[in-house]
């Protein structure tokens, strides 16, 4: 057994993950019976029981998925905390690459947050209606999400049980520095920042023109470009060091845990915006509430990122 499994953060993470999976597994069993027997036009006892049960099951799923969203932050915290025990790791970057499963767990965790948001939004529409119009749709979507989370759960066990604390891993300067290849797609910082600005303006413009498909696509493109912009440009101003390029170090107390805010605003804002666009495109919802919150988060992310550059320039009179 890997000694990593004795780490308190890992124990808490895996136990929480197991608890959430147990809640989702119970819901999964009931969801299967809802899909098989649901007939809203029926007035018999079985259908009344299903309607009562569906409300309870939906509530359990919402609670489990919201917990799962928070658990992603805890996973990031856990891998950062493990950097003390894994040889060669200075932050989560090294720990996540300690074996082949790490990146898959992280990416699947991020995707499951997005899927959870979409499910919660569809469920919200369903319970606001008088005739459960999206019961089947949300049930099928939940089954897909459950299977996805189940795979993520198995991978997270494989990941933590296969971390070898004596094997030296690469640190972030190797992974994201010149040795690791630098900015991808043959871009340099100028081109990266141009794309960052362009996609941000495109989001604002397409929102103003109410072209929701373009908003969705540009938001996803903005997410990718922003990730690299933070790692290769804005992050260097957080660290105040031109050679320090890492998405994980900013999660540490040396940088006042600002990474949680940076990544939370970026991923939260983009996912909420995409979710809101899906609701508008496919379900013709009128409410702009989540869209406004998403926009506020994205704008806050942009201001925060640029703010670090400006503060550095004001303090030092030069750019990195």
């Amino acid at each position, binding site marked *: 057994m890997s000694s990593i499994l004795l780490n308190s953060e890992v124990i808490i993470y895996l136990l929480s993950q197991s608890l959430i999976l147990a809640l989702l597994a119970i819901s999964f069993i009931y969801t299967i019976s809802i899909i098989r027997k649901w007939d809203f036009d029926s007035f018999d006892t079985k259908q*009344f029981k299903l309607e*009562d049960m569906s409300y309870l099951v939906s509530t359990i799923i919402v609670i489990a998925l919201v917990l799962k969203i928070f658990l992603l932050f805890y996973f990031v915290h856990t891998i950062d905390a493990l950097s003390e025990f894994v040889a060669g790791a200075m932050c989560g970057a090294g720990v996540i690459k300690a074996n082949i499963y790490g990146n898959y767990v992280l990416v699947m965790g991020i995707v499951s947050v997005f899927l959870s948001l979409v499910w919660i939004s569809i469920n919200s529409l369903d319970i606001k209606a*008088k005739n459960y119009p999206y019961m089947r749709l949300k049930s099928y979507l939940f089954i897909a999400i459950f299977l996805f989370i189940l795979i993520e759960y198995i991978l997270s066990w494989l990941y933590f049980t296969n971390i070898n604390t004596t094997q030296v891993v690469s640190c972030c300067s190797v992974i994201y520095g010149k040795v690791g290849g630098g900015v991808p797609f043959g871009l340099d910082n100028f081109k990266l920042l141009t794309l960052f600005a362009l996609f941000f303006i495109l989001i604002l413009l397409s929102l103003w023109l109410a072209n929701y498909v373009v908003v969705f696509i540009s938001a996803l493109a903005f997410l990718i470009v922003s990730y690299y912009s933070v790692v290769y440009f804005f992050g260097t101003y957080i660290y105040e060091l031109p050679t320090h390029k890492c998405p994980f170090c900013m999660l540490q107390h040396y940088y006042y845990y600002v990474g949680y805010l940076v990544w939370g605003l970026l991923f939260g804002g983009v996912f909420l915006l995409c979710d809101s666009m899906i609701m508008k495109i496919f379900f013709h919802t009128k409410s702009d509430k989540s869209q406004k919150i998403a926009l506020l988060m994205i704008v806050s992310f942009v201001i925060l990122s640029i703010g670090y550059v400006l503060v550095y320039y004001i303090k030092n009179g030069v750019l990195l």
Partner: protein
Amino acid sequence: MIEISQVYKTYNMGTESEFEALKGVSFTVRDKPVILKGVSGSGKSTLLSLIAGFEKPTKGKIIVDDLLVSKLPDLHLSNYRATRVGFVFQHFNLIESITVLDNIIVPLIPIYKDIEYIKTLAYRAMKRVGIEHKAHQDTKDLSGGEKQRCAIARALVNDASLIVCDEPTANLDKKNRDNFIDIIGDLHSEGKRVIIATHDPVFENLDFECEILNIKDGRIEE
């Protein structure tokens, strides 16, 4: 129109104490007040609680106007109870430790935000049943008839289109019974639908036309 079709209600289903309170009740109410008559345990109160949306049937269809009440999800059922139903309970179900005004305000709190508007509606309802002079008195100090008027005011305060009364005259003297019947007559003439569950003979000779349904062992008797 209120349509009740093949409604069953079973309590403690699948247990040793399983009890079938309603066994396939069907009837349609148009505009006349309905008097549900029957002995204790016949299923009157159960039927009222299903119509008022306090509970859901085990099976069957309940339609109140355009609403399929028996199928409403909880969120909508709460809204239905808050905006469309006024309920007068046998034991009034008032909060004894607060004033008459506060008791009447309670159902409006989830609906409106403006407290002055809420108070205006509450005073209107109190005036209607002649209890406005007791507005600031603690409910525990009221007489039986006053408590009942307070309960009626609370049932009327949301301008409900359906007034449901469960044994409303069981704890009243003759004078207060007559007052209650006058109020019911007024509500009917205003176009509100009234359903009363009772075994009080005073409802057998009313001045206005009403539909009397006898309920026995969970079934409507022809």
